[in-house]
């Protein structure tokens, strides 16, 4: 099982800054925009972006929520394992808001499909966009594409993209692992 570094800490940081600027370009002061990190690992991307936008680009207020999609997934009872949930924490309505869904890796698109279904429980958004740090572009099962992408990767199906974060795993790094 070999692994190679796909993105280093420095590269991740540059990409996050670029993504933050792209969000700024489209949403300016974030007055009618909310960011929603998909649990469990999209939340790290969402938190980093929020931090950059607030501290470096002086956006005063950004609504940030965490969305758990476990109960909306389409593979319930299809695997061997019980799907374990994580917390949802969205203390605002998305009704008429521009929502940016944020995840770390876009692979089959099924998580995003579930997230779109889950989002409906919090109102009818005006518009939904998708931001993803890694886009595995040849692996999609559904017609879902990101509006903002960090890095496009042509990983094949028996490869795995693993994203590590300093606050959770000790360092920022993205690996491509050969299974």
């Amino acid at each position, binding site marked *: 099982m070999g692994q190679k570094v796909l993105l280093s800490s420095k590269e991740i940081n540059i990409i996050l800054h670029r993504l933050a600027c792209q969000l700024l370009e489209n949403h300016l002061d974030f007055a009618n925009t909310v960011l929603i990190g998909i649990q469990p690992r999209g939340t790290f991307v969402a938190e980093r972006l929020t931090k950059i936008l607030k501290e470096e680009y002086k956006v005063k207020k950004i609504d940030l929520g965490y969305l758990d999609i476990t109960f909306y997934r389409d593979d*319930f009872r299809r695997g061997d394992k019980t799907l*374990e949930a994580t917390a*949802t924490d969205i203390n605002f309505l998305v009704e008429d808001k521009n929502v940016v869904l944020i995840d770390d890796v876009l692979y089959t698109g099924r998580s995003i499909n579930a997230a779109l279904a889950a989002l409906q429980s919090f109102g009818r958004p005006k518009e939904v966009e998708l931001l993803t740090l890694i886009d595995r572009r040849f692996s999609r099962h559904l017609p879902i594409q990101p509006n903002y992408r960090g890095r496009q990767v042509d990983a094949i199906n028996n490869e795995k993209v693993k994203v590590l974060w300093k606050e959770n795993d000790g360092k920022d790094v993205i690996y491509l692992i050969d299974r």
Partner: protein
Amino acid sequence: MSELSVKHLLGIKYLNKKDIQLIFETADHFKEVINRSIKKVPSLRDITIANIFFENSTRTKLSFELAEKRLSADIVNFSASQSSVNKGETLIDTVNNILSMKVDMVVMRHPNPGAGIFLSKHVGASIINAGDGAHEHPTQALLDSYSIREKLGDVAGKNVVIVGDILHSRVALSNIFALKLQGANVKVCGPKTLLPKHIESLGVEVETNLKNALNWCDVANMLRIQNERLDISYFPTTREYTQQFGVNKKLLNELDKEIVIMHPGPINRGVEITSDVADSDQSIILNQVENGVAIRMAVIYLLASKIK
């Protein structure tokens, strides 16, 4: 990745500590779901559940039904009074007929202890015991412990007294199993006639003086006198029972700490607790009802994920 150690929920006796922990953690997420404006998730959209009630129930049946609907399961309801059971059909036949219509899970309440266990040995579906005679009522005990955990932070190390008719109560037995499993200290309190012999062997202490019990406890779980199960006279009059084992505001005010009051319902106001106690800030009776839906969603979700 964790999952339940059991295929059915027949009683707390068959669960381990990790199972209870997993059910509580899953219930936390469902509690968030049922407090949204849209209280429904699609997890169980391809699961069918039969609610089979051979005994009357309002709260439990409603709570299970809501839990199932909020998980998007299809449900069928069956109550014995309007069924072929009255025409002499056996339990296995009744259930097998229902299962032939492609039902995946059965929630059953039955007057006979062990009815769920018996059924689990003879039919293929996943069984949830919603009360079997004087034996167990596992989801009630889970929601009671969950409510204690919510109010006091943890169940371990807490002093809990169960007051009333311990002899006929499935709620008491399931609660004793659940509380002991989580490391709580348990006392039972009631007239000697309504305390089973050898109850100490379950690791609980017996206290016949209510005031002493209340002074000792952090939580008092008040049970209803189940007149429908009392075949003989266990105490002289209801009035005398109330005088000795009823909780009122005056009694609570005399304690040097504020204890938590629970009741599995239905309440007989003025018998086991007075209205001012039932409606006070110390009472978490309505929280128990709310938590009941979240706990049942968690149990159904976790058991359903094992149906292949």
